[in-house]
């Protein structure tokens, strides 16, 4: 790993002031540090935001669950409030990586990185999330813009993620046996007037599969998906799964998710 200047910061102002075109914010570091070790990324300044108190914690109101950006996966997975308000979100957090990754990795880090196989981006899309940054609110359908790309500007810091509490929801994934990243993950959420079916792992970026969502909006049952054909164009193809396989898994896991809602 190339060396850098490490800064531990105490408030958002201090952290964003230090940011430059050659800096990175560090939360859990579960992706940032391995990427730096592999030489895929290097920075002049690493700005640690873990000690900024206001960025951590979980708040539940009648309509939403708001999770601070440096809240760890284990905290979300074990939160009684999250389990009660959106059980599928706690279950998603419990399925990320392994216990040690869950003890360090954070929700803000996960969505800022926007790995095409990460779990949390699908929760944001399915649960109509709003991403709160240090200077604006971004709706999740405008946040995830491409592979490892988001609409965050340089030096913009995620402070919290606000999820809308659905009527019912479920996340089902086929995890890579080694990394536990989703080969395909499907997050189905039924809200009062709409249904979202967020797919991760299948394409270069998380997306809302409208054909499944529309079928479920008419009839929220797995049998309503029987006649649907999911095209494999644009799907990832690698040593773990071909594009055709992934397309099939999208439907299989969507049905599983609906049945488990």
């Amino acid at each position, binding site marked *: 790993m190339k060396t850098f200047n490490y800064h*531990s910061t105490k408030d958002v102002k201090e952290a964003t002031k230090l940011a430059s075109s050659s800096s990175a914010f560090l939360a859990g570091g579960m992706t940032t*540090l391995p990427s730096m070790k592999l030489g895929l990324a290097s920075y002049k300044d690493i700005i640690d935001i873990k000690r900024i108190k206001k960025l951590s914690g979980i708040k539940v109101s009648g309509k939403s669950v708001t999770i601070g950006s440096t809240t760890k996966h284990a905290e979300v997975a074990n939160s009684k409030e999250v389990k009660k308000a959106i059980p599928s979100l706690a279950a998603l957090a419990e399925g990320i990586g*392994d*216990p040690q*990754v869950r003890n360090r990795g954070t929700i803000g880090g996960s969505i800022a990185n926007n790995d095409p196989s990460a779990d949390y981006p699908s929760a944001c899309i399915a649960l109509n999330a709003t991403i709160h940054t240090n200077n604006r609110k971004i709706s999740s359908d405008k946040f995830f813009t491409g592979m490892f790309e988001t609409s965050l500007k340089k030096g913009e810091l995620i402070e919290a993620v606000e999820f809308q509490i659905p009527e019912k929801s479920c996340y089902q994934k086929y995890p890579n046996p080694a990394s536990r990243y989703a080969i395909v993950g499907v997050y189905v959420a039924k809200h009062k007037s709409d249904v979202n079916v967020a797919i991760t792992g299948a394409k270069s970026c998380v997306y809302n599969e409208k054909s499944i969502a529309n079928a479920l909006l008419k009839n929220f049952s797995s049998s309503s998906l029987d006649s649907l054909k999911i095209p494999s164009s644009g799907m990832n193809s690698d040593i773990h799964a071909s594009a055709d396989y992934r397309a099939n898994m999208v439907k299989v896991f969507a049905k599983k998710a609906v049945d488990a809602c």
Partner: protein
Amino acid sequence: MKKVSLEVNGKKVSKEVPDHTVLSVFLREVLNLTGTHIGCDTSQCGACVVHVDGKSIKSCTALAADIEGSKVTTIEGLVSNGKMHPMQEAFKKQHGLQCGFCTPGMVMSAIDLLNHKKNPSDKEIRDWLEGNICRCTGYQNIVAAVKEAASKM
């Protein structure tokens, strides 16, 4: 350079290290605590698991600077009065190791599990050890060792 002050296995340490020093390197190369192993060095294999403030983490993927002020326990910190920890005893008795490379991480992970859950099922043990990879013994005896330790801790 950064001055890093930690409590490691009950002893206070304070060392000046380059900013990019990860905890596994700090433990092994600065403190000579080589019981913590480095396997994949990319947070997959779990050979480097230690406890930081009572929670298991992968020490290859944490900067020493960013755990400043924390309490760290490594495999060397488990022995008390010359006696092995019940988890170490159980791994020995159940033949939960062959080459032993993954063992320090397995032991540290498994202790964290029992700190959460007193009598885990086989499935809970296997789920918890998802982030610890063993290439030689296989997992049967490791699971048996954790179960035995659970009955004694």
